[in-house]
C-alpha cells in the first residue's frame, strides 16, 4: 500500500507544526522521518494514522483518498512511543485484542485467534511470555509485543513512533537489526519516526530530514549523508566542521586563505557569504603543505581511544577543527599538542552553501 501526502499543513494554536508537506512512500518501502523534537515528524506520522487531522492537504493510500477516513477504517498499524500496551491484560490478550473486537461477521473463531496469536508471538520470539502482564516485561520485550499486537490485524501500513527511543543502546541495536529482517520478510510499507540519525541511516530505504515543520531533504541514506542538499542537512547528519567563508568570482575564501575548493554547491557561483562543511574523516593532516587547498593549523588535543584517532586543532584563522585519522597515519605523523601541521580536504568533499 503506497502513501501520498499532498500539501499537508497543521497548526496548534499559533505554532506551525507542519508547513506544506509533500511526500510519496512507495509500496513496501521503509521510510524514516528524521528530525529533532518539534520538527513535526511525530505530528506527520499521526496524521497518516488518522490520530490527528490536518488543517489542509490530503492523505491518499494507493491512490484512494483517506483524509476523511477514521482511524479504524484506515487499517494501519501504529506502534506508540511508549508501547501503549494494555496494562491489565496479559501479553496474549494484548495481541489478541484487535481480533477480538472485530464485528461478529468478520471475527475469526476463538481457536483461530489463539493459533494466530501464538504464531505472532513465535515470530517475535516471545511465546514463552504469553501469560505475563506488561509490567513484568523488559522494554525490549514490550516493544516486540506492541509490534506483534499491531501485526495481528494485518495492517496495510506500519507506522512506528520512536520505536526504540527509550531502550538501552545494546537492546536498540538488536531490535534495529531484527526490525530490518522482519521488514524484508513481510514486505509491508513502513514509516518510522526517529531523532537518531544512525537508526535512520541504518534502517531506512529513504530518509526524510525534517526541520521546523518542513522537509529539508528526501533521499537514500547515501544521498543525504554524502550529498546534503543544504546547510541544515549537512550539519544534522554525522559530524561536521563548520567554517564561515565568502565567494568571490567563483572562488571560495576563508579569512584570507583562498581554498580553491571549487564552486559552490547548487549551481552558478556568485559573490557573497558562504558556509563550508567538511566531515572530520575527510580532512588529511600533513607536516608540509600539499597543494593549493592546504591550510595551516595547530594541534590542541589528541584522543587515540577508539577505532580512529580524534585530533582537535585550531585553524590558522582561529576556528576549531576536528579531524579523524586512522591509527597508522597517527603513528606515521607522530603528532603532539602544539605541533604546526597542514590540513587539506579530500577532493570534492566540501559542502558549500551560500547564505
Amino acid at each position: 500500500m503506497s502513501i501520498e501526502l499532498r500539501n499537508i499543513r497543521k497548526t496548534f494554536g499559533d505554532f506551525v507544526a507542519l508547513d506544506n508537506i509533500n511526500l510519496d512512500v512507495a509500496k513496501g518501502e521503509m521510510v524514516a522521518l528524521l528530525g529533532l523534537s518539534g520538527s513535526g515528524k511525530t505530528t506527520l506520522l499521526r496524521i497518516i494514522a488518522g490520530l490527528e487531522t490536518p488543517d489542509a492537504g490530503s492523505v491518499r493510500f494507493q491512490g484512494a483518498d483517506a483524509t476523511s477516513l477514521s482511524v479504524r477504517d484506515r487499517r494501519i498499524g501504529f506502534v506508540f512511543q511508549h508501547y501503549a500496551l494494555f496494562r491489565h491484560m496479559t501479553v496474549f490478550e494484548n495481541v489478541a485484542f484487535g481480533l477480538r473486537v472485530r464485528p461478529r461477521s468478520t471475527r475469526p473463531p476463538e481457536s483461530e485467534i489463539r493459533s494466530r496469536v501464538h504464531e505472532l508471538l513465535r515470530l517475535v520470539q516471545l511465546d514463552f511470555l504469553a501469560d505475563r502482564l506488561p509490567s513484568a516485561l523488559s522494554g525490549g520485550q514490550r516493544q516486540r509485543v506492541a509490534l506483534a499486537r499491531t501485526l495481528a490485524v494485518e495492517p496495510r501500513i506500519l507506522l512506528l513512533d520512536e520505536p526504540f527511543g527509550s531502550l538501552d543502546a545494546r537492546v536498540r541495536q538488536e531490535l534495529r537489526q531484527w526490525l530490518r529482517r522482519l521488514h524484508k520478510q513481510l514486505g509491508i510499507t513502513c514509516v518510522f519516526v526517529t531523532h537518531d540519525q544512525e537508526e535512520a541511516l541504518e534502517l531506512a530505504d529513504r530518509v526524510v530530514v525534517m526541520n521546523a515543520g518542513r522537509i529539508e531533504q528526501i533521499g537514500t541514506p547515501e544521498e543525504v549523508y554524502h550529498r546534503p542538499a543544504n546547510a541544515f542537512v549537512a550539519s544534522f547528519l554525522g559530524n561536521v566542521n563548520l567554517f564561515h567563508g565568502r565567494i568571490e568570482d567563483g572562488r571560495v575564501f576563508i579569512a584570507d586563505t583562498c581554498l580553491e575548493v571549487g564552486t559552490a554547491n547548487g549551481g552558478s557561483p556568485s559573490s557573497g557569504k558562504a558556509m563550508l562543511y567538511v566531515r572530520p574523516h575527510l580532512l588529511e593532516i600533513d607536516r608540509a603543505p600539499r597543494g593549493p587547498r592546504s591550510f595551516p593549523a595547530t594541534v590542541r588535543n589528541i584522543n587515540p581511544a577508539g577505532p580512529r584517532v580524534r585530533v582537535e586543532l585550531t585553524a590558522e584563522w582561529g576556528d576549531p577543527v576536528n579531524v579523524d585519522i586512522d591509527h597508522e597515519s597517527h603513528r606515521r605523523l607522530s603528532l603532539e599538542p602544539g605541533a604546526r601541521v597542514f590540513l587539506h580536504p579530500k577532493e570534492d568533499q566540501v559542502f558549500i552553501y551560500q547564505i
Partner: protein
Amino acid sequence: MKGASRRVLPGFGLTLGFTIAYLSVIVLIPLSTIFFRSAALGPADFWAVISAPRTLAACRLSFMAAFAAAMINCVFGLAVAWTLVRYEFPMRGIVDAMVDLPFALPTSVAGITLTAIYASNGWIGRWFVLLGIKIAFAPLGIVAALTFVGLPFVVRTVQPVLEEIDLELEEAATTLGANRLQTFARVTLPTLMPAVLTGFTLAFARAIGEYGSVVFISGNLPMKTEVLPLLIMSKLEQFDYGGATAIGVLMLAISFVLLYGVNSIQKWSARRLAA
C-alpha cells in the same frame, strides 16, 4: 479535506450533552431558584433581613468562630502533618487514617458526641468547668465543633507537599550553618505556605456553612450562640422562606468569594513555584 475540529477519541458529544444536562438539572436549576426567589423579595425587604440585628450577630459569630477554628486547625494541622510525614511512632498508620474521620462521620453523630464530651459533666468539659470555662452551649463549643469538621483540611493539603519536598534544600541550609528551627522557618515553611493557606480557606469555608455538628452544641440562643446556618434553619421552621432565602444568598456570596480565593491562591502559588 476536513477541518482540524474532528476529534479522534469518541464520545465527545455524548459526554458533553449528558454532563451539561445532568449538571443543569441537579445543580444549576436548583441554585438559580434561590436567586429568583430572592429577587422576588425586592431590595428593600432583602436589605431588611440582612441588616437585622439577629442576622448581623449571627454573621459576626459565624465569622469569628470559623476564623478561630481555622486558625487552630492551621497551627495544629501543620504540627500533625509534620509529625505524620517526618516521624515514626506506634500506630502511625491508624492515626493517619483517622484524620479523615470528620469527613466520614455524619455531622449529627459528631454533633451529639461533641456535646456529650464538652458538656459540664462531659469527659473533657468537666475539666474546663473547674477553670470556669464553659464550652458546650457557649461560643467556645461552636469553635470546638468547627475545629472538628475542619481538622482534615489543613493536614491533607499540607501532607502531600511535605512528602514531595526536596530534602536536599534542607540539607543545603544545614551545610550553610542554619539550625533546624531556622531551616524550618526560612526554607521549609515558605514552601508550605500556599498549602497552609489553601487548607485554611477550605476549613474556613466549611466552618461557615456547617450545621449538623453545631446545632447540638451551640444551644441556638439568638444573638448569643446562633450562627448563620442555624438562623436559616430557624427561619425555615417558621416558614419565613423570604428571610431564609435572603440569608441563603448572603451565604452563597460568601462561599463563592472564598472559592475564588482558593483558586487564586493555587494559581498564584503555581506561578510562583514554576518561576
